[in-house]
Protein backbone atom coordinates (compact mmCIF):
# COMPACT_ATOMS: atom_id res chain seq x y z
CA UNK A 1 0.00 0.00 0.00
CA UNK A 2 2.64 2.45 1.05
CA UNK A 3 5.05 1.55 -1.71
CA UNK A 4 2.36 1.87 -4.37
CA UNK A 5 1.67 5.37 -3.11
CA UNK A 6 5.32 6.21 -3.48
CA UNK A 7 5.23 5.06 -7.05
CA UNK A 8 2.32 7.26 -7.99
CA UNK A 9 3.60 10.41 -6.32
CA UNK A 10 3.90 13.21 -8.82
CA UNK A 11 7.45 14.23 -9.51
CA UNK A 12 7.10 17.82 -8.48
CA UNK A 13 10.57 18.86 -9.52
CA UNK A 14 10.12 18.39 -13.24
CA UNK A 15 6.66 19.77 -13.95
CA UNK A 16 7.06 23.40 -12.95
CA UNK A 17 5.71 24.81 -16.15
CA UNK A 18 2.41 25.59 -17.78
CA UNK A 19 -0.38 27.93 -16.84
CA UNK A 20 -2.58 27.55 -13.76
CA UNK A 21 -5.51 26.30 -15.84
CA UNK A 22 -7.81 25.61 -12.92
CA UNK A 23 -7.51 29.13 -11.57
CA UNK A 24 -7.99 30.56 -15.05
CA UNK A 25 -11.10 28.45 -15.62
CA UNK A 26 -12.61 29.47 -12.28
CA UNK A 27 -11.77 33.11 -12.92
CA UNK A 28 -13.42 33.02 -16.33
CA UNK A 29 -16.52 31.38 -14.84
CA UNK A 30 -16.72 34.02 -12.13
CA UNK A 31 -16.45 36.84 -14.66
CA UNK A 32 -19.05 35.15 -16.85
CA UNK A 33 -21.51 34.92 -13.96
CA UNK A 34 -20.96 38.56 -13.04
CA UNK A 35 -21.41 39.77 -16.63
CA UNK A 36 -24.42 37.55 -17.20
CA UNK A 37 -26.13 38.71 -14.03
CA UNK A 38 -26.03 42.33 -15.17
CA UNK A 39 -27.72 41.50 -18.46
CA UNK A 40 -30.29 39.12 -16.99
CA UNK A 41 -33.82 39.70 -15.74
CA UNK A 42 -34.92 40.41 -12.19
CA UNK A 43 -35.47 36.81 -11.18
CA UNK A 44 -31.98 35.75 -12.22
CA UNK A 45 -30.54 38.74 -10.39
CA UNK A 46 -32.29 37.56 -7.23
CA UNK A 47 -31.01 33.98 -7.57
CA UNK A 48 -27.44 35.15 -8.19
CA UNK A 49 -27.67 37.68 -5.37
CA UNK A 50 -28.70 34.93 -2.94
CA UNK A 51 -25.89 32.73 -4.26
CA UNK A 52 -23.35 35.50 -3.66
CA UNK A 53 -24.65 36.16 -0.16
CA UNK A 54 -24.48 32.46 0.64
CA UNK A 55 -20.98 32.35 -0.84
CA UNK A 56 -19.93 35.00 1.67
CA UNK A 57 -21.59 33.09 4.51
CA UNK A 58 -19.92 29.82 3.45
CA UNK A 59 -16.51 31.44 3.05
CA UNK A 60 -16.64 32.35 6.73
CA UNK A 61 -18.04 29.00 7.81
CA UNK A 62 -15.34 27.31 5.75
CA UNK A 63 -12.67 29.10 7.72
CA UNK A 64 -13.95 27.56 10.95
CA UNK A 65 -14.95 24.16 9.57
CA UNK A 66 -12.69 23.62 6.58
CA UNK A 67 -9.48 25.24 7.71
CA UNK A 68 -9.63 25.00 11.50
CA UNK A 69 -11.47 21.68 11.35
CA UNK A 70 -14.21 22.45 13.89
CA UNK A 71 -17.96 22.03 13.54
CA UNK A 72 -20.62 24.68 13.97
CA UNK A 73 -24.28 23.96 13.36
CA UNK A 74 -25.33 27.34 14.66
CA UNK A 75 -23.77 29.83 12.29
CA UNK A 76 -27.29 30.95 11.28
CA UNK A 77 -27.43 32.67 14.68
CA UNK A 78 -24.87 35.21 13.53
CA UNK A 79 -26.60 35.73 10.20
CA UNK A 80 -29.74 36.50 12.21
CA UNK A 81 -27.83 38.96 14.39
CA UNK A 82 -26.51 40.70 11.30
CA UNK A 83 -29.85 40.68 9.49
CA UNK A 84 -31.99 41.86 12.39
CA UNK A 85 -29.29 44.23 13.62
CA UNK A 86 -29.03 45.94 10.25
CA UNK A 87 -32.82 45.96 9.81
CA UNK A 88 -33.48 47.55 13.19
CA UNK A 89 -30.61 50.03 13.01
CA UNK A 90 -31.40 51.26 9.50
CA UNK A 91 -35.22 51.10 9.49
CA UNK A 92 -35.91 52.26 13.04
CA UNK A 93 -32.89 54.36 13.90
CA UNK A 94 -31.96 55.63 10.42
CA UNK A 95 -28.39 54.49 10.80
CA UNK A 96 -26.43 54.43 7.53
CA UNK A 97 -26.63 50.88 6.08
CA UNK A 98 -22.84 50.74 5.66
CA UNK A 99 -22.34 51.82 9.27
CA UNK A 100 -24.96 49.33 10.46
CA UNK A 101 -23.20 46.59 8.50
CA UNK A 102 -19.92 47.26 10.28
CA UNK A 103 -21.57 47.73 13.69
CA UNK A 104 -23.46 44.44 13.46
CA UNK A 105 -20.33 42.63 12.27
CA UNK A 106 -18.53 43.92 15.36
CA UNK A 107 -21.43 43.00 17.61
CA UNK A 108 -21.68 39.48 16.15
CA UNK A 109 -17.95 39.04 16.61
CA UNK A 110 -18.31 40.05 20.24
CA UNK A 111 -21.20 37.63 20.78
CA UNK A 112 -19.15 34.87 19.15
CA UNK A 113 -16.29 35.66 21.49
CA UNK A 114 -18.51 35.47 24.57
CA UNK A 115 -20.39 32.35 23.44
CA UNK A 116 -17.32 30.67 21.98
CA UNK A 117 -15.11 31.07 25.01
CA UNK A 118 -16.82 28.38 27.11
CA UNK A 119 -18.21 26.44 24.12
CA UNK A 120 -14.95 25.84 22.31
CA UNK A 121 -13.57 23.98 25.30
CA UNK A 122 -16.07 21.29 24.40
CA UNK A 123 -15.03 18.75 21.82
CA UNK A 124 -16.58 16.97 18.87
CA UNK A 125 -20.28 16.27 19.25
CA UNK A 126 -20.61 18.49 22.29
CA UNK A 127 -19.36 21.50 20.41
CA UNK A 128 -21.68 20.70 17.51
CA UNK A 129 -24.65 20.39 19.88
CA UNK A 130 -23.79 23.61 21.67
CA UNK A 131 -23.59 25.55 18.42
CA UNK A 132 -26.83 23.97 17.21
CA UNK A 133 -28.50 25.15 20.41
CA UNK A 134 -27.17 28.63 19.76
CA UNK A 135 -28.91 28.69 16.36
CA UNK A 136 -32.18 27.48 17.90
CA UNK A 137 -32.04 30.04 20.70
CA UNK A 138 -31.55 32.88 18.25
CA UNK A 139 -34.42 31.56 16.16
CA UNK A 140 -36.72 31.45 19.20
CA UNK A 141 -35.72 34.97 20.17
CA UNK A 142 -36.44 36.24 16.67
CA UNK A 143 -39.93 34.73 16.92
CA UNK A 144 -40.81 35.66 20.46
CA UNK A 145 -39.21 39.03 21.12
CA UNK A 146 -41.83 40.66 18.95
CA UNK A 147 -41.18 44.20 20.22
CA UNK A 148 -37.75 44.00 18.69
CA UNK A 149 -38.18 41.67 15.71
CA UNK A 150 -41.90 41.79 14.89
CA UNK A 151 -41.92 38.00 15.28
CA UNK A 152 -43.48 35.84 12.56
CA UNK A 153 -44.71 38.98 10.83
CA UNK A 154 -41.19 39.72 9.80
CA UNK A 155 -39.37 42.98 9.47
CA UNK A 156 -40.03 45.08 6.42
CA UNK A 157 -39.08 48.51 5.11
CA UNK A 158 -35.35 47.84 5.24
CA UNK A 159 -33.60 50.36 2.97
CA UNK A 160 -31.13 49.28 0.28
CA UNK A 161 -27.40 49.29 0.83
CA UNK A 162 -25.56 52.55 0.65
CA UNK A 163 -23.50 55.20 2.31
CA UNK A 164 -24.14 58.93 2.54
CA UNK A 165 -25.91 60.20 -0.59
CA UNK A 166 -25.00 57.08 -2.55
CA UNK A 167 -27.28 54.12 -2.27
CA UNK A 168 -27.93 51.10 -4.42
CA UNK A 169 -31.41 51.93 -5.62
CA UNK A 170 -31.83 49.05 -8.07
CA UNK A 171 -31.42 45.29 -7.60
CA UNK A 172 -28.50 45.34 -10.02
CA UNK A 173 -26.78 48.12 -8.13
CA UNK A 174 -27.29 46.11 -4.94
CA UNK A 175 -25.86 43.07 -6.68
CA UNK A 176 -22.78 45.07 -7.64
CA UNK A 177 -22.24 46.04 -4.00
CA UNK A 178 -22.69 42.42 -2.92
CA UNK A 179 -20.13 41.27 -5.51
CA UNK A 180 -17.61 43.81 -4.28
CA UNK A 181 -18.09 42.76 -0.65
CA UNK A 182 -17.90 39.09 -1.59
CA UNK A 183 -14.66 39.73 -3.47
CA UNK A 184 -13.23 41.48 -0.40
CA UNK A 185 -14.36 38.59 1.77
CA UNK A 186 -12.72 36.03 -0.48
CA UNK A 187 -9.48 37.99 -0.72
CA UNK A 188 -9.43 38.30 3.07
CA UNK A 189 -10.01 34.55 3.44
CA UNK A 190 -7.23 33.74 0.98
CA UNK A 191 -4.83 36.06 2.79
CA UNK A 192 -5.76 34.53 6.13
CA UNK A 193 -5.34 31.03 4.76
CA UNK A 194 -1.78 31.62 3.64
CA UNK A 195 -0.52 33.38 6.73
CA UNK A 196 1.07 32.41 9.99
CA UNK A 197 -2.37 32.52 11.57
CA UNK A 198 -4.09 30.51 8.83
CA UNK A 199 -1.41 27.86 8.74
CA UNK A 200 -1.72 27.49 12.50
CA UNK A 201 -5.49 27.03 12.14
CA UNK A 202 -5.03 24.37 9.48
CA UNK A 203 -2.44 22.72 11.70
CA UNK A 204 -5.04 22.54 14.49
CA UNK A 205 -7.34 20.72 12.07
CA UNK A 206 -4.54 18.24 11.35
CA UNK A 207 -3.42 17.52 14.89
CA UNK A 208 -4.18 19.53 17.99
CA UNK A 209 -1.45 17.66 19.83
CA UNK A 210 1.27 18.54 17.36
CA UNK A 211 0.01 22.11 16.94
CA UNK A 212 0.22 22.62 20.69
CA UNK A 213 3.69 21.10 20.82
CA UNK A 214 4.84 23.68 18.26
CA UNK A 215 3.66 26.50 20.51
CA UNK A 216 0.30 27.21 18.86
CA UNK A 217 -2.33 28.30 21.42
CA UNK A 218 -5.00 25.89 20.19
CA UNK A 219 -8.01 27.10 22.20
CA UNK A 220 -7.35 30.76 21.39
CA UNK A 221 -6.98 30.18 17.67
CA UNK A 222 -10.16 28.11 17.53
CA UNK A 223 -11.95 30.97 19.24
CA UNK A 224 -10.57 33.55 16.80
CA UNK A 225 -11.58 31.48 13.80
CA UNK A 226 -15.07 31.05 15.28
CA UNK A 227 -15.26 34.84 15.58
CA UNK A 228 -14.12 35.23 11.96
CA UNK A 229 -16.86 32.87 10.77
CA UNK A 230 -19.41 34.79 12.83
CA UNK A 231 -18.34 38.12 11.33
CA UNK A 232 -18.78 36.72 7.81
CA UNK A 233 -22.16 35.23 8.73
CA UNK A 234 -23.27 38.55 10.15
CA UNK A 235 -22.25 40.42 7.01
CA UNK A 236 -24.17 37.88 4.91
CA UNK A 237 -27.25 38.36 7.12
CA UNK A 238 -27.05 42.14 6.77
CA UNK A 239 -26.66 41.93 3.00
CA UNK A 240 -29.68 39.67 2.77
CA UNK A 241 -31.79 42.11 4.77
CA UNK A 242 -30.87 45.01 2.48
CA UNK A 243 -31.09 43.01 -0.73
CA UNK A 244 -34.60 41.72 -0.07
CA UNK A 245 -35.82 44.58 2.10
CA UNK A 246 -37.63 42.11 4.31
CA UNK A 247 -36.59 39.43 6.80
CA UNK A 248 -38.43 36.94 8.97
CA UNK A 249 -37.28 34.27 11.41
CA UNK A 250 -37.53 31.55 8.75
CA UNK A 251 -34.84 33.21 6.67
CA UNK A 252 -32.24 32.45 9.32
CA UNK A 253 -33.72 29.12 10.43
CA UNK A 254 -32.21 25.65 10.50
CA UNK A 255 -32.69 25.35 6.73
CA UNK A 256 -29.83 27.81 6.41
CA UNK A 257 -27.52 25.36 8.22
CA UNK A 258 -28.50 22.50 5.90
CA UNK A 259 -28.16 24.71 2.85
CA UNK A 260 -24.69 26.00 3.79
CA UNK A 261 -23.41 22.54 4.71
CA UNK A 262 -24.56 21.24 1.35
CA UNK A 263 -22.72 24.07 -0.36
CA UNK A 264 -19.54 23.48 1.61
CA UNK A 265 -19.34 19.75 1.05
CA UNK A 266 -20.54 19.83 -2.54
CA UNK A 267 -18.22 22.66 -3.48
CA UNK A 268 -15.20 21.37 -1.59
CA UNK A 269 -14.57 22.19 2.05
CA UNK A 270 -11.16 23.48 3.09
CA UNK A 271 -10.42 25.37 -0.12
CA UNK A 272 -10.97 28.99 -1.08
CA UNK A 273 -12.89 28.27 -4.29
CA UNK A 274 -14.95 25.36 -2.91
CA UNK A 275 -17.53 27.40 -0.96
CA UNK A 276 -18.03 29.70 -3.96
CA UNK A 277 -18.54 26.78 -6.33
CA UNK A 278 -20.90 25.14 -3.85
CA UNK A 279 -22.93 28.31 -3.33
CA UNK A 280 -23.40 28.85 -7.05
CA UNK A 281 -24.18 25.23 -7.92
CA UNK A 282 -26.59 24.60 -5.05
CA UNK A 283 -28.39 27.88 -5.77
CA UNK A 284 -28.80 26.94 -9.43
CA UNK A 285 -29.87 23.33 -8.88
CA UNK A 286 -33.55 23.96 -8.15
CA UNK A 287 -33.74 26.00 -11.37
CA UNK A 288 -32.02 23.37 -13.49
CA UNK A 289 -34.15 20.60 -12.02
CA UNK A 290 -37.45 22.35 -12.37
CA UNK A 291 -38.28 20.01 -15.29
CA UNK A 292 -38.30 17.08 -12.91
CA UNK A 293 -41.44 18.52 -11.30
CA UNK A 294 -42.41 16.37 -8.30
CA UNK A 295 -39.14 14.49 -8.40
CA UNK A 296 -37.08 17.64 -8.09
CA UNK A 297 -36.04 17.03 -4.48
CA UNK A 298 -35.23 13.41 -5.22
CA UNK A 299 -33.06 14.36 -8.19
CA UNK A 300 -31.34 16.99 -6.12
CA UNK A 301 -30.56 14.61 -3.29
CA UNK A 302 -29.39 11.85 -5.62
CA UNK A 303 -26.97 14.24 -7.28
CA UNK A 304 -25.72 15.29 -3.87
CA UNK A 305 -25.21 11.68 -2.77
CA UNK A 306 -23.39 10.86 -6.00
CA UNK A 307 -21.00 13.75 -5.52
CA UNK A 308 -20.35 12.95 -1.88
CA UNK A 309 -19.60 9.33 -2.78
CA UNK A 310 -17.61 9.81 -5.97
CA UNK A 311 -16.04 13.18 -5.23
CA UNK A 312 -15.59 13.27 -1.45
CA UNK A 313 -13.55 16.44 -1.78
CA UNK A 314 -16.36 18.12 -3.65
CA UNK A 315 -16.53 19.66 -7.07
CA UNK A 316 -13.36 21.61 -6.45
CA UNK A 317 -11.54 18.40 -5.57
CA UNK A 318 -12.80 16.88 -8.80
CA UNK A 319 -11.57 19.89 -10.71
CA UNK A 320 -8.20 19.63 -8.98
CA UNK A 321 -7.87 16.06 -10.20
CA UNK A 322 -8.61 17.08 -13.76
CA UNK A 323 -6.50 20.25 -13.66
CA UNK A 324 -3.85 19.70 -10.98
CA UNK A 325 -1.56 22.40 -9.62
CA UNK A 326 1.52 22.92 -11.67
CA UNK A 327 3.31 24.84 -9.01
CA UNK A 328 3.11 24.59 -5.22
Amino acid sequence: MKSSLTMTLPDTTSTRSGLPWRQILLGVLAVAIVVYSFTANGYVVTVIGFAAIYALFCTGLNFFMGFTGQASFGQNAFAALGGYGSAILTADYSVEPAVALVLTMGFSGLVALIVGYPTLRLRGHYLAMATFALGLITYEISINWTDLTQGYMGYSGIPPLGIGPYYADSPKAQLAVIFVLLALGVIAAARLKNSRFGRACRAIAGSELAAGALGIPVARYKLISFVIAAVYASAAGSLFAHFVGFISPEVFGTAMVVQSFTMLYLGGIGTIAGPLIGAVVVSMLPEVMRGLKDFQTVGYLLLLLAILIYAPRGLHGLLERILPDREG
Partner: protein
Amino acid sequence: MTMLDIRDITKRFGGLVANDSIAFTVEAGQIFAVIGPNGAGKTTLFNMVAGTFPPSEGEVAFDGAVISGRSVAEIAQSGLVRTYQLVQLFKQMTVAENVMVGFHRVTTGGVFSALVRPPGVRRQEREIREKTAEILEFVGLSHRADVTADLLPYGEQRLLEVARALAAGPKLLLLDEPAAGLNTEETAELARVVRKVNENGVTIMLIEHDMGLVMQIAHRIAVLDFGRKIAEGTPEEIRAHPEVIAAYLGGTEGYDD
Protein backbone atom coordinates in the same frame (compact mmCIF):
# COMPACT_ATOMS: atom_id res chain seq x y z
CA MET B 1 25.68 23.46 31.19
CA THR B 2 22.60 21.46 32.17
CA MET B 3 19.79 21.64 29.61
CA LEU B 4 17.27 19.42 31.33
CA ASP B 5 17.14 18.52 35.00
CA ILE B 6 14.69 15.80 35.92
CA ARG B 7 14.32 15.90 39.68
CA ASP B 8 12.87 12.75 41.21
CA ILE B 9 9.67 12.70 39.22
CA THR B 10 6.97 10.17 39.94
CA LYS B 11 3.78 9.50 38.02
CA ARG B 12 0.94 7.43 39.36
CA PHE B 13 -2.03 6.34 37.27
CA GLY B 14 -4.40 5.15 39.98
CA GLY B 15 -2.48 2.32 41.61
CA LEU B 16 0.07 2.01 38.82
CA VAL B 17 3.40 3.74 39.33
CA ALA B 18 4.38 4.48 35.73
CA ASN B 19 7.43 6.53 36.77
CA ASP B 20 9.02 5.95 40.14
CA SER B 21 11.20 8.79 41.38
CA ILE B 22 13.27 9.17 38.22
CA ALA B 23 16.19 11.59 38.18
CA PHE B 24 18.87 12.45 35.66
CA THR B 25 20.25 15.43 33.80
CA VAL B 26 20.76 16.08 30.11
CA GLU B 27 23.72 18.32 29.33
CA ALA B 28 23.62 20.84 26.52
CA GLY B 29 24.87 19.39 23.24
CA GLN B 30 24.16 15.78 24.15
CA ILE B 31 22.16 13.10 22.44
CA PHE B 32 20.54 11.44 25.42
CA ALA B 33 18.62 8.21 24.90
CA VAL B 34 15.99 6.67 27.16
CA ILE B 35 15.54 2.98 26.55
CA GLY B 36 13.58 0.19 28.18
CA PRO B 37 11.03 -2.51 27.42
CA ASN B 38 7.50 -1.68 26.33
CA GLY B 39 5.47 -0.25 29.19
CA ALA B 40 8.59 0.77 31.10
CA GLY B 41 7.33 4.34 31.37
CA LYS B 42 9.34 6.12 28.69
CA THR B 43 6.48 7.97 27.03
CA THR B 44 5.09 8.86 30.43
CA LEU B 45 8.42 10.47 31.26
CA PHE B 46 8.32 12.43 27.99
CA ASN B 47 4.79 13.58 28.67
CA MET B 48 5.82 15.01 32.02
CA VAL B 49 8.83 16.76 30.52
CA ALA B 50 6.79 18.24 27.65
CA GLY B 51 3.94 19.29 29.95
CA THR B 52 1.21 16.96 28.64
CA PHE B 53 0.50 16.21 32.30
CA PRO B 54 2.27 17.25 35.51
CA PRO B 55 4.30 14.82 37.65
CA SER B 56 2.58 13.40 40.74
CA GLU B 57 5.77 14.27 42.59
CA GLY B 58 9.01 16.00 41.72
CA GLU B 59 9.71 18.61 39.08
CA VAL B 60 11.48 19.24 35.80
CA ALA B 61 13.78 22.18 35.11
CA PHE B 62 14.57 23.19 31.55
CA ASP B 63 17.28 25.68 30.68
CA GLY B 64 17.47 26.78 34.30
CA ALA B 65 13.75 27.28 34.98
CA VAL B 66 11.20 24.91 36.52
CA ILE B 67 8.68 24.07 33.78
CA SER B 68 6.44 21.56 35.57
CA GLY B 69 2.92 22.95 35.74
CA ARG B 70 3.22 24.93 32.51
CA SER B 71 1.18 24.01 29.43
CA VAL B 72 2.59 22.19 26.40
CA ALA B 73 2.38 25.36 24.31
CA GLU B 74 4.19 27.43 26.98
CA ILE B 75 6.93 24.85 27.31
CA ALA B 76 7.25 24.69 23.52
CA GLN B 77 7.49 28.48 23.48
CA SER B 78 10.49 28.27 25.79
CA GLY B 79 12.33 26.02 23.31
CA LEU B 80 11.47 22.44 24.20
CA VAL B 81 9.84 20.77 21.19
CA ARG B 82 8.71 17.17 20.92
CA THR B 83 7.59 14.66 18.34
CA TYR B 84 5.09 11.90 19.03
CA GLN B 85 5.35 8.13 19.10
CA LEU B 86 2.48 8.00 16.60
CA VAL B 87 3.16 10.38 13.73
CA GLN B 88 1.15 13.57 14.11
CA LEU B 89 1.47 15.36 10.80
CA PHE B 90 -0.84 18.01 9.41
CA LYS B 91 -2.05 15.62 6.76
CA GLN B 92 -3.98 17.98 4.52
CA MET B 93 -1.10 20.44 4.28
CA THR B 94 1.86 20.10 1.98
CA VAL B 95 5.27 19.01 3.21
CA ALA B 96 6.54 22.59 2.96
CA GLU B 97 3.50 23.96 4.81
CA ASN B 98 4.05 21.45 7.61
CA VAL B 99 7.51 22.85 8.12
CA MET B 100 6.25 26.43 7.82
CA VAL B 101 3.91 25.77 10.76
CA GLY B 102 7.01 24.79 12.69
CA PHE B 103 8.17 28.42 12.55
CA HIS B 104 5.17 29.54 14.58
CA ARG B 105 7.12 29.82 17.81
CA VAL B 106 9.87 31.97 16.32
CA THR B 107 7.66 34.29 14.23
CA THR B 108 4.92 36.82 14.98
CA GLY B 109 1.66 38.02 13.51
CA GLY B 110 -2.05 37.29 13.79
CA VAL B 111 -5.23 38.11 11.90
CA PHE B 112 -4.51 41.77 11.38
CA SER B 113 -1.06 41.33 9.89
CA ALA B 114 -2.39 38.50 7.71
CA LEU B 115 -5.03 40.81 6.23
CA VAL B 116 -2.93 43.94 5.87
CA ARG B 117 0.40 42.29 5.04
CA PRO B 118 2.72 45.09 6.10
CA PRO B 119 6.29 44.94 4.68
CA GLY B 120 7.63 43.30 7.83
CA VAL B 121 5.20 40.42 7.48
CA ARG B 122 6.02 39.97 3.79
CA ARG B 123 9.70 39.81 4.68
CA GLN B 124 8.97 37.29 7.41
CA GLU B 125 6.96 35.13 5.00
CA ARG B 126 9.85 35.22 2.55
CA GLU B 127 12.28 34.20 5.28
CA ILE B 128 10.00 31.38 6.35
CA ARG B 129 9.92 30.10 2.78
CA GLU B 130 13.69 30.28 2.42
CA LYS B 131 14.38 28.60 5.74
CA THR B 132 11.76 25.94 5.00
CA ALA B 133 13.57 25.12 1.78
CA GLU B 134 16.84 24.90 3.73
CA ILE B 135 15.37 22.55 6.33
CA LEU B 136 13.81 20.33 3.68
CA GLU B 137 17.18 20.20 1.97
CA PHE B 138 18.79 19.38 5.31
CA VAL B 139 16.58 16.35 5.95
CA GLY B 140 16.50 15.35 2.28
CA LEU B 141 12.85 16.10 1.53
CA SER B 142 13.25 18.94 -0.99
CA HIS B 143 11.79 16.88 -3.79
CA ARG B 144 8.60 16.39 -1.78
CA ALA B 145 7.98 20.04 -0.87
CA ASP B 146 4.62 20.36 -2.64
CA VAL B 147 3.27 16.91 -1.88
CA THR B 148 0.42 16.58 0.61
CA ALA B 149 1.93 15.16 3.81
CA ASP B 150 -0.66 12.40 3.82
CA LEU B 151 0.86 10.85 0.69
CA LEU B 152 4.43 10.49 2.01
CA PRO B 153 5.82 7.04 2.70
CA TYR B 154 6.19 6.35 6.40
CA GLY B 155 9.94 6.90 6.61
CA GLU B 156 9.59 10.34 5.09
CA GLN B 157 6.71 11.18 7.40
CA ARG B 158 9.10 10.60 10.30
CA LEU B 159 11.71 12.83 8.70
CA LEU B 160 9.08 15.49 8.12
CA GLU B 161 8.18 15.43 11.80
CA VAL B 162 11.79 16.08 12.67
CA ALA B 163 12.00 18.82 10.01
CA ARG B 164 8.92 20.52 11.39
CA ALA B 165 10.28 20.38 14.93
CA LEU B 166 13.57 21.87 13.71
CA ALA B 167 11.74 24.85 12.25
CA ALA B 168 10.67 25.74 15.77
CA GLY B 169 14.33 26.33 16.59
CA PRO B 170 14.37 24.04 19.61
CA LYS B 171 17.08 24.11 22.25
CA LEU B 172 15.99 20.63 23.24
CA LEU B 173 14.32 18.22 20.85
CA LEU B 174 12.36 15.28 22.27
CA LEU B 175 11.93 12.37 19.85
CA ASP B 176 9.57 9.58 20.87
CA GLU B 177 10.59 6.39 19.04
CA PRO B 178 11.48 8.16 15.81
CA ALA B 179 12.63 4.93 14.15
CA ALA B 180 9.56 2.85 15.04
CA GLY B 181 8.24 1.16 11.92
CA LEU B 182 11.18 2.18 9.73
CA ASN B 183 13.20 -0.26 7.68
CA THR B 184 17.00 -0.49 7.98
CA GLU B 185 17.62 2.00 5.23
CA GLU B 186 15.13 4.54 6.59
CA THR B 187 16.57 4.09 10.09
CA ALA B 188 20.06 4.81 8.83
CA GLU B 189 18.80 7.95 7.10
CA LEU B 190 17.08 9.06 10.28
CA ALA B 191 20.22 8.42 12.33
CA ARG B 192 22.20 10.55 9.90
CA VAL B 193 19.68 13.40 10.22
CA VAL B 194 19.50 13.21 14.01
CA ARG B 195 23.27 13.34 14.26
CA LYS B 196 23.44 16.28 11.88
CA VAL B 197 20.80 18.15 13.88
CA ASN B 198 22.81 17.54 17.02
CA GLU B 199 26.02 18.73 15.36
CA ASN B 200 24.16 21.96 14.57
CA GLY B 201 23.86 22.56 18.31
CA VAL B 202 20.48 21.09 19.22
CA THR B 203 20.37 18.96 22.36
CA ILE B 204 18.39 15.78 21.77
CA MET B 205 16.60 13.40 24.07
CA LEU B 206 15.12 10.39 22.40
CA ILE B 207 13.23 7.27 23.28
CA GLU B 208 14.21 4.39 21.12
CA HIS B 209 13.50 0.74 20.67
CA ASP B 210 16.20 0.19 18.08
CA MET B 211 19.26 -0.71 20.15
CA GLY B 212 21.55 -0.49 17.15
CA LEU B 213 20.50 3.09 16.55
CA VAL B 214 20.83 4.06 20.21
CA MET B 215 24.27 2.54 20.67
CA GLN B 216 25.38 4.24 17.49
CA ILE B 217 24.25 7.82 18.12
CA ALA B 218 23.63 8.34 21.86
CA HIS B 219 26.25 9.99 24.06
CA ARG B 220 24.47 8.88 27.18
CA ILE B 221 21.71 6.42 27.95
CA ALA B 222 19.23 5.93 30.78
CA VAL B 223 17.48 2.60 31.12
CA LEU B 224 13.97 2.34 32.50
CA ASP B 225 12.30 -0.84 33.66
CA PHE B 226 8.91 -1.05 35.38
CA GLY B 227 8.94 2.71 35.94
CA ARG B 228 12.33 2.79 37.64
CA LYS B 229 15.66 3.96 36.29
CA ILE B 230 17.87 0.90 36.57
CA ALA B 231 20.98 2.25 34.90
CA GLU B 232 22.56 5.30 33.33
CA GLY B 233 25.82 5.76 31.48
CA THR B 234 27.66 5.79 28.20
CA PRO B 235 26.71 3.19 25.55
CA GLU B 236 29.74 1.10 26.60
CA GLU B 237 28.73 1.20 30.24
CA ILE B 238 25.14 0.30 29.43
CA ARG B 239 26.20 -2.59 27.25
CA ALA B 240 28.22 -3.99 30.14
CA HIS B 241 25.70 -3.25 32.88
CA PRO B 242 24.60 -6.49 34.56
CA GLU B 243 21.13 -5.29 35.50
CA VAL B 244 20.46 -4.03 32.00
CA ILE B 245 21.57 -7.30 30.52
CA ALA B 246 19.36 -9.10 32.97
CA ALA B 247 16.42 -6.78 32.28
CA TYR B 248 16.37 -7.41 28.59
CA LEU B 249 19.51 -6.93 26.56
CA GLY B 250 20.58 -10.53 26.81
CA GLY B 251 17.35 -11.80 28.32
CA THR B 252 14.46 -13.56 26.69
CA GLU B 253 12.04 -10.63 27.08
CA GLY B 254 13.42 -8.86 24.03
CA TYR B 255 11.75 -6.26 21.95
CA ASP B 256 8.52 -6.41 20.12
CA ASP B 257 9.98 -5.36 16.82
